[in-house]
């Protein structure tokens, strides 16, 4: 056995999220795990942040060590909710050994928990037993499974993301969760590879509409370019551009659904960006909107003219699958 070094999660931080109509103090944890079993999504850079070729015992040991670190570093009273990411599926026991899941469940019992998983691991005994572990009756909906639906368009999901999942798979998983009194958080992906800006916007609008019936929470990720991904390969060669922040505003303003959005990397070349002049203000507005769902915050920045808005309008109208991306 290797030496018992202290293991830390890949990342963890305190933040705020709007859940069930209230802004909650949230602990976000990104666990280093055995890794996503699918592991093929074109934009996913977490593929490399996993334990490699390790037996189950050792994996368990290391992940428990991460849980210990969390216990030692965050006080339970400081947060109301926990978001768990594993760069894969929290409910895949090959990725997160049962012992680890249970240990974490016990630690965060009484909190609202949002746990990320691919749809195929949302099966009844797994989620129910975890729900039981954490539920102490304080919350109407103590557990949410967070599923990366990305889009409701199977063709886009397959070509542009290579997700290995259909909308049907998602619907089935959502029903499973619903039947187990577990909430569903859907993650949508704004502008994966191979879409024009306009196609990406249309896809998000449709996806929000179609996913809403199966979702208790919805969040839209704005695509960012992570290292060593297919996406980065294309981006470096000028064949991909992250979405405009104007587009994100457009999508969020187009629906009555409450869709949260954290514009990670906003304003940087690898993240969603406009021209660099207006990015900061828009990012701030989206952040604020995600805690309040106050549309006027978005409207205010959307109505502010910036030189680049003309460019964005041009791109919307003239970028075609055969001539894209028009900008960088």
């Amino acid at each position, binding site marked *: 056995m290797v030496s018992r070094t202290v293991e830390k999660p890949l990342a963890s931080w305190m933040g705020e999220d709007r859940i069930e109509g209230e802004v909650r103090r949230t602990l976000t944890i990104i666990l280093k795990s055995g890794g996503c079993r699918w592991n093929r999504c074109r934009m996913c850079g977490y593929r490399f942040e996993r334990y490699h070729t390790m037996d189950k015992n050792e994996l368990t040991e290391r992940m428990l060590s991460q849980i210990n670190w969390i216990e030692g570093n965050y006080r339970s009273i400081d947060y109301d909710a926990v978001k768990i990411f594993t760069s894969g599926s929290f409910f895949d026991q090959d990725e997160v050994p049962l012992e680890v899941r249970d240990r974490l469940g016990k630690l965060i019992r009484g909190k609202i928990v949002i746990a990320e998983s691919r749809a195929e691991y949302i099966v009844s005994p797994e989620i129910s037993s975890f729900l039981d572990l954490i539920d102490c009756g304080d919350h109407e909906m103590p557990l949410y499974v967070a599923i990366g639906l990305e889009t409701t368009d199977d*063709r*886009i999901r397959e*070509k542009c993301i290579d997700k290995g999942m259909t909308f049907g798979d998602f619907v089935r998983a959502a029903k499973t969760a619903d039947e187990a009194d577990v909430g569903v958080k859907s993650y949508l992906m704004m502008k994966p590879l*191979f*879409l*024009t800006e306009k*196609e990406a916007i249309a896809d998000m609008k449709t996806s929000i509409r179609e996913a809403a019936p199966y979702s208790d929470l919805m969040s839209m990720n704005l695509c960012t370019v992570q290292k060593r991904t297919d996406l980065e*390969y*294309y981006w470096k*060669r*000028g*064949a*991909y551009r992250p979405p405009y922040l104007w587009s994100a505003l457009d999508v969020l303003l187009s629906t009555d659904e409450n869709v949260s959005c954290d514009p990670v990397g906003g304003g940087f070349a690898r993240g969603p960006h406009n021209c660099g002049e207006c990015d900061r203000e828009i990012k701030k507005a989206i952040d604020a909107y995600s805690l309040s769902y106050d549309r006027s915050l978005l409207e205010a920045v959307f109505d502010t003219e910036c*030189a*680049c808005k*003309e*460019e964005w*309008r*041009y*791109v919307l109208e*003239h970028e*075609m*699958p*055969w*001539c*894209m*991306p*028009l*900008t960088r």
Partner: protein
Amino acid sequence: MSRFEVRHRDGLARHGIYTIGDRTIETPCVIDPIAVFPDLASRPFSNIPLQADEAFVKEWFEKSGEEPIPVHPVLSEGISSGDAAIISCWHTALTNPRTYADWVEQFISTLPPDAARYAPASALPSNAAMLVATGFDLFDTIAVDLRASQGLFCTPEGVYPGSWIDEGVCSCPGCQSGELREHNRQALVSEIRLAAALLKRGELRELLEMRCRSDAAMVAILRHLDSRKAFLEGNTPIARTTPFRAYTAESMNRVEIDRFEKRVMNRFSQDRWDVCVLLPCAARKPYSFSQSHKKFQEAVAGRAHEVIVTSPLGVVPRELELIYPAAHYDVPVTGYWDREEMHILTGYLAEYLRTHPYRRVISHLEGGASSVARSAASEAGIQLEESCIDGRPTSRESLNQLYDALAGERKRSHDIISGTIQWQFGETIDTKGMLIKGKGPEKKIYRGRQQLFSFDPKTGLLRPTFEGWSLLSGCYQVRIEGFVPQGDILAPGVAEADPAIREGDEVLVYGEGVRATGRAMMSADEMRRSSRGVAVKVRKVKRS
């Protein structure tokens, strides 16, 4: 269904007529893509980046039955003669010079030559010459309109702030009315017309050597392309009638020079000459019309083979001084020969001296050319004599020295007929009894009363008569099948063509019961792969 017929070529560039429905478009040209190709409006979710790998392309590439037909670097089949091929997202190719060159070679080698090529969203006034020069025919205003939306002002020199519309640097209707988009479009259209006008004159390369300076990547593209000699050689006319302006460092790498020298090395032989005198070039072309060469020829007095050492051409035996580009090139003269230049020229001369052994080699050179001769002689392991004793080849002293150096050597004359035939056709024929007649530009070659060849005064090449052709052993021939030519030979009529044939070459056409002399209007490869266009411009037809 559409049609495309190439009318003029200049290297990879072409001027042609693209016909779709009742539209006739003279290329190269800016089109409204949706108007010309309505199907382009309805190809949702069809993006395949140029940079995608084969597996992805195989899985996701969507064929189209409508024009324009999409192609991809890993999948350029499926295009027929007359189609318009759309090279999607070509604008993303411009930033990677090496792959740009790869892809251009790939597309031009595999697409039917008589399919039009549409480069969407790519053309700016500053890169249009490069796009045209690398074989694209159809363009749009997407890139310039985008710049207008970004408040940018496009010129052939680059992209500048939109405020330039008020600087008076242009007087187009857009600038007059203060409409940026209109200016940008006008600048693009004008530039493409300029490229078209110059390609028709055979001067597109010169434009390219100016225009590529707006972008380091374009300079690199030019250099990468120039290094693909075999590819370019097949697509470059054998001769032009316009000046060959070697005004930049990149001019040294033009394939015309490489081809000229390769033929000097591999095709040309120095006949029975065993004494060689290396002479400097002259600004006046052909060299022998210059004052200095008249003096050299007087001093040599026919007692040595005259071989000119020159930049950028390298080695020009006197017999070949009329041939393109030897009689056509022009260079800036400062007296300074740079080291890259000297290295390239030394390579040519050393190779010449290796492939053309002489008993004596006399250098009547000065400066850079003299250094080149010394290095080349040493590379070739040859003892070099020098007759230019004061750094001035035309001085009385040097000329005397040259005269004296040749004392006792036998007089001969340069066999321009044999040399030209070797260079042009790669064959050696017996020229005994042949005479060059005519003093003006139209020289003719007779044996007895029979005319065998005439010189094309503009290119220095020979035009064989049927009797001339009979002296050559089957090279540069085009076989036609199934018809008796009424006028020019069209590409679909060509059954077979000597692969050596280049645009501008003199060829002999033969078919059942008929022979014709003429000039190739396209390369053998293009004849083979084209279904439209004139393959051979016929001069004379003979039924037999």
